[in-house]
């Protein structure tokens, strides 16, 4: 049962997303209107803790559970794909109030309308795959 640890980690993720209200459309609106610190606090603490941990992993060459060094792969250097893709993503995020993770947490919570959003997110990914070579990257 090598996969059970991912199931449990996913359950914790779902609970954190729901209990922190990060899955709420209202919270995303509040964030994009700069009217509360809540979402910035969540992302900010995660990034500061994350950066500290990644620095320690690199400094002490920490290995994963199977003994392999934990590796980080630099993403391709570009501006256009990150900026344009990111902007399209952000518009969808503010409209539907959910990024991909929170979509499925919402479905589990009982907001079945999010299944429509999630289905079309899959369709959107498919459309990207279809026209990928015609887009500037």
């Amino acid at each position, binding site marked *: 049962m090598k996969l059970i640890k991912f199931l449990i980690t996913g*359950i914790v993720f779902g609970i954190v997303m729901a209990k922190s209200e990060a899955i709420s459309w209202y919270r995303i609106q509040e964030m994009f209107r700069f009217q509360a610190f809540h979402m910035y606090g969540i992302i*900010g603490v995660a990034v500061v803790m994350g950066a500290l941990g*990644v620095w320690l992993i690199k400094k002490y060459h920490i290995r994963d*559970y199977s003994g392999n060094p934990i590796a980080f792969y630099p993403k391709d250097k570009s501006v256009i794909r990150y900026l344009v893709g990111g902007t*399209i993503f952000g518009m969808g995020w503010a409209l539907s109030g959910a990024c991909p993770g929170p979509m499925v947490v919402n479905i589990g919570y009982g907001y079945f309308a999010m299944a429509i959003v999630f*289905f079309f997110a899959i369709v*959107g990914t498919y459309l990207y795959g279809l026209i990928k070579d015609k887009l500037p990257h």
Partner: protein
Amino acid sequence: MHEFITQSWSWWFSGFLISVIMFLLLYFGKSFGFSSNLRTICAAVGAGKTAKFFDFNWKGQIWNLVFLVGAILGGTISATVLRNDEPVRISKETISDLMELGIAAPESLQPSELFGFDAVFSLKGFLILSIGGLMVGFGSRYAGGCTSGHAISGLSDLQIPSLIAVVGFFAGGLIMTHILLPFIF
């Protein structure tokens, strides 16, 4: 204790746990990036036949689909065992801004104006949900990641591409919130 975990969780505790989730996945030899699942699902249902982008060994990504199933279950646990019927306590300014758009003050976690039965089965409501989803799915793959892959994993690794993507996330969010939403609602 029970009340402590059923009430909504603070930003610092939640943010801390998200970094723990990222570290756990790194320790398991993987990385935290949720939107990859969208590509994996396309591949698993045979999209590789029509687009090369989906022609890869998706079975190597099953661990992330299991994580996704866990996330659904986490949502269900939050709505049952850990349930809290308090409305989301957003700021007064947000409540009055949203009222101008015709969205009432929160009564639960999500607005029924968007996710309620009547909204879903209206043309406008359906278009909002479907176009929102399309943009998230298309944009996350074009940008090479979503909030987890870029804003959390990428920024933690001090990657410039992720910083550019996050700037894009916010640019898009601000355009939608401040310019387009008044025309949509």
